[in-house]
């Protein structure tokens, strides 16, 4: 039976078939451009990986050592990177208080054919056992960066970057040395003490007071002295004169020191005990 016009079912089926084909073609083209752009984005990030250490700044605020790591993220692709968030976990196998820090950054949006900087503020709390360790010892800090973003609005990207960060201690190689004691008129002994340390974090300046307590092997207090300390790049040698009773020889004595920062807020860190040779 010939009909004057196709039935509604036939027309509906025709429309649906055309829609299905158009949707498939559109998706294939879209996927191809997303894949091409994603490769360009990945190559751009990989090229920037070497410049990670050039964008690190450190400072002390309160009881925290703050390390600001800026990640330049170029986007050479067509599509935007949206809701970029970063989470970084820093650990060190030597220090048993792990993780040292957990920090987040973002969210950030990076337009296509553009570049964005994502800052990651990492805080090392000096109040935990890692604080004194990091003040005195260089450390290889293992960092793991988790990056989450939405690419081209429909592709969630998860990036996990494992890297090592070399931490330079501001009071590295802290050592005490004594000179020849001289008898003072008041019956005390003046002993020149040399305090040496090296600041292995260029640009990190720490000002405060170092309170030094010298005790003999039996634990008897010999002397106590406080003097200002300020770190600067490279080695620092402080020459101080300690006054102690003539019963103290200092050689073989133990030295405990407390670093105090005026803040604000003020804080103090007990440095590990050293022995005078």
């Amino acid at each position, binding site marked *: 039976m*010939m*009909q004057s016009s196709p039935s509604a079912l036939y027309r509906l*089926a025709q429309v649906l*078939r055309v829609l299905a084909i158009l949707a498939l073609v559109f998706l294939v083209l879209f*996927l191809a451009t*997303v894949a091409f752009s994603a490769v360009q984005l990945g190559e751009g990030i990989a090229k920037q990986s070497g410049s990670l250490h050039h964008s690190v700044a450190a400072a002390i605020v309160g009881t925290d050592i703050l390390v600001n790591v800026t990640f330049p993220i170029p986007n050479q692709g067509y599509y935007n990177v949206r809701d970029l968030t970063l989470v970084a976990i820093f650990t060190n196998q030597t220090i048993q208080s792990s993780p040292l820090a957990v920090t987040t950054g973002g969210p950030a949006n990076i337009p296509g054919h553009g570049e964005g900087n994502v800052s990651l503020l990492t805080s090392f709390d000096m109040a935990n056992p890692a604080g004194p360790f990091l003040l005195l010892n260089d450390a290889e800090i293992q960092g793991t960066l988790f990056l989450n973003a939405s690419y081209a609005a429909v*592709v969630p990207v998860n*990036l*996990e970057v494992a890297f090592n960060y070399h931490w330079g201690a501001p009071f590295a190689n802290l050592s005490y040395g004594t000179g020849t004691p001289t008898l003072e008129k008041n019956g005390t002994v003046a002993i020149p003490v040399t305090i040496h340390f090296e600041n292995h974090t260029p640009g990190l300046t720490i000002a405060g007071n170092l309170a030094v307590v010298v005790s003999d092997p039996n634990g008897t207090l010999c002397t106590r002295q406080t003097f200002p300390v300020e770190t600067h790049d490279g080695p620092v040698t402080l020459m101080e004169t300690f006054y102690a009773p003539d019963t103290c020889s200092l050689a073989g004595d133990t030295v405990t020191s407390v670093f105090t920062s005026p803040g604000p807020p003020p804080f103090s860190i007990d440095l590990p005990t050293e022995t005078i040779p």
Partner: protein
Amino acid sequence: MNGPQFSEPGSPYPARAPGARRVIPYQPPGVSGARIAGAVSLTFLYFGLVALLPYYLEQYAAKYGLSAPIGPDFLLVAGAIVAILAGLSVATKPTRAWGPVRVMSAGFDLIYIFYLLQNPVYATTIHGFMISLTYSRILELFLIPPGIGLLAGVVTSIGDIRHPWERIQLQFPPKLWPSRGGGYGQAM
């Protein structure tokens, strides 16, 4: 209408009543050899795109330590089924089986994509960076074409039931021009 009219195949009514215009019975084209050849060609083309291309891409990526969540054997088997059903869909287009075959084809595509959605993460390492791409949203978008195709198959099946031969007649109209052997292409 001035043109010739067609009776349905097997119609008890005479094709030409006395005094009426001549009615040419419609002969559905059936599955011709050319159509089967086209269907087979399309099957191989689909197999290359849906099965072989992902298979070799996966093998290529494996050389660089990139592992995909879908096994290569599964890609080949599922791709072969997708290709065969697509070819079958082309072969059966001049028949009333086209609608159900399209439903089967789109249905399998949907099942395949739903299976891929079970583990939609592709992890790789580039220059020490471990990158994982979650392509679930892309796959979800790829549910749209077979979803619409499934709907089209259902509507086509219903249409073929309610209006037998209408679709085939419209998509494969009778040949009314002279054929090479003389006479008209359509039986009179």
